[in-house]
């Protein structure tokens, strides 16, 4: 059972985007950072354990040419071996900041050259893989940036081709060893999933085709891909082979966010149907393949959820954002 905790107020309501909540847990400092996209701006705030807001900062999308300012598509903290960077993607480019958002360390402008008149141009999908940060594009390309241990000398090291439609989300996990080298999965608007092995050159390992609906959110846990789809389904595949192992009719509307508490194997799914579900992932003793058990369902009344994340490593608390809602809702288990 979960109970509602004190909400954290936001300066601006959350935009109707997917994966619209990023959480950086800092248990050592007894702090949690939250990042939410409002539209042309994103809000960062830090809170103490009871949800007491401590500090907040707003970041704007850069390069406002034209009548209206560009819109931000996603904000996400990337935890790298020696530093944490905050990445912001928009319709103009990719902005990278020090983790508190105080200093912009890198700006990459989007090249709209190839886009036809009818295509929207934007960056979307952010994940850290080792000392790389990967960012997805409207074209389906994934940019791989090499991040130094400190300083602004960030270099675009590779551009991955695997997708033909806009990237929606990227997930990574530390490589699981010899048997499973897959450590990154990218998803797109057509529902296609690409599984990669990171390295000085990323290698495409498997392609898992879509079935006519977008895949807005994806996670990777112990060699298993968990994907949430526009028709409300959550599917789990074996990353190295692409074999479908679990299919859950989980939600009544499009899924907007998935999150993992990797240490305990908990998966969280949130959708536009106002529900958040928590699932326990495990490996069956016989076949060693992945199994899923439903743990808990929470209804956030009259709220089109757009972001959801666990707030602690044991998966015993989570936070939710909703379209038009100017607060972060918090839940913790009793």
């Amino acid at each position, binding site marked *: 059972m979960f109970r509602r905790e004190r909400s954290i107020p936001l300066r*601006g309501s959350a935009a109707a985007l997917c994966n619209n909540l990023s959480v950086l847990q800092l248990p050592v400092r007894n702090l949690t950072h939250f990042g939410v996209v409002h539209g042309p701006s994103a809000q960062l705030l830090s809170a103490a354990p009871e949800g007491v807001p401590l500090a907040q900062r707003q970041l704007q999308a850069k390069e406002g040419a034209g009548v209206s300012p560009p819109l931000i598509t996603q904000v996400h903290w990337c935890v790298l071996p020696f530093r944490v960077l905050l990445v912001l993607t928009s319709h103009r480019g990719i902005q990278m900041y020090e983790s508190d958002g105080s200093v912009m360390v890198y700006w990459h402008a989007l090249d709209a050259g190839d886009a036809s008149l009818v295509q929207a141009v934007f960056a979307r999908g952010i994940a850290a893989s080792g000392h790389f940060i990967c960012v997805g594009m409207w074209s389906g390309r994934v940019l791989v940036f090499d991040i130094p241990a400190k300083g602004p000398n960030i270099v675009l090291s590779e551009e991955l081709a695997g997708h033909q439609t806009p990237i929606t989300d990227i997930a990574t996990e530390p490589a699981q060893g010899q048997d499973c080298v897959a450590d990154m999965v990218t998803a797109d608007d057509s529902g296609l999933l690409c599984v990669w092995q990171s390295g000085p050159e990323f290698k495409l390992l498997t392609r898992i085709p879509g079935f006519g609906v977008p895949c807005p959110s994806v996670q990777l846990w112990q060699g298993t891909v968990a994907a949430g789809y526009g028709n409300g389904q959550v599917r789990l595949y074996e990353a190295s082979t692409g074999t479908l192992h679990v299919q859950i009719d989980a939600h009544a509307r499009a899924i907007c966010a998935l999150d993992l508490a990797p240490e305990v194997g908990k998966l969280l799914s949130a959708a536009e149907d106002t529900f958040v579900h928590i699932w326990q992932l495990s490996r069956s003793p016989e076949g060693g393949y992945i199994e899923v058990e439903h743990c808990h369902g929470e*209804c956030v009344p009259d709220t089109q959820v757009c972001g959801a994340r666990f707030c602690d490593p044991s998966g015993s608390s989570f936070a939710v954002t909703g379209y038009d809602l100017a607060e972060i809702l918090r839940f913790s288990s009793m």
Partner: protein
Amino acid sequence: MSVRTLPLLFLNLGGEMLYILDQRLRAQNIPGDKARKVLNDIISTMFNRKFMEELFKPQELYSKKALRTVYDRLAHASIMRLNQASMDKLYDLMTMAFKYQVLLCPRPKDVLLVTFNHLDAIKGFIQDSPTILHQVDETFQQLTEIYGGLSAGEFQLIRQTLLIFFQDLHIRVSIFLKDKVQNSNGRFVLPVSGPLPWGTKVPGLVRTFNNKGEEVRKVEFKHGGSYVAAPKEGSFELYGDRVLKLGTNMYSVNRPMETHMSGASENLAAQTQESIAPNPLAKEELNLLARLIGGMEIKKPSGPEPGFRLNLFTTDEEEEQAALTRPEELFYEVINIQATQDQQTNEELARIMGEFEILDQPRRSASKGDDLLAMMDEL
């Protein structure tokens, strides 16, 4: 965001506008022939070929200011006049209705069915004019051509673009409050029961497969809602059962039209962001307005069809009161075309506008009678 959103926004808002005007014309007992003329004139202007051409070009959504100005002009495309307060209320009702429809669309693609519902009803308003009917059918064709082939992902982007446009709008609408479709805090009710989107299964099942693809386990879980599978998919043909009720005329019976202003708007800090930014009207927006105005015939309120004023409120006093008490954060800004900075386009627009009269300043008068007299004085 998506560059294919403007036609859907314009047509659906226009459809809602016509529903509301039709109901008010009947409520105010405007003679049938006058009422029909007003609706015919507005529909004919809306579906003007050059205007539609401009509208369907791939482009970013217009600013809220520009869009509001378009509807101002459209509402005045005939012999009918609206005071500022009534125009504001009309726009409030239009925008909240379409926001509701977008939010409740089961699938992102269903916004196309909502649009078709509006077009179907618009055809019903057109009387004795095969030309206008043909214009609407042509627009239907264009919609099918452009949107018929879009993927689910592209519709999702269109949906997100529309929702961002409507973000932070929480005006309470009487009909919605009465039907329990909107809460007293202005937020829409999102039911957790009813028909599912086409293509979505009833939630509650976990299926496990082995390496050979054989199902080895099937477990149910309690998902918390009470859903049923959709009976059938709505039709995207020129004629057909749309199945979806969103976008049909909710005013066809006499329904209350009040809106409630207090506490309607939140996040002022976020909203002022847009008004602080410099105004320049984008070239595209000016082009659209020019096309719209260019498509309007020269209208002089004279001869056998004298103009009249429509009131969105029940009495003139209510209308005046509404004008005085509208919260500042809900002031709609309408573009003063003379004041734009783009000299060349401005001159062109001014020339087009100079060719006919439009009463820019709404009249304030105590009664309808005075209004008509004043109008006739101008002839």
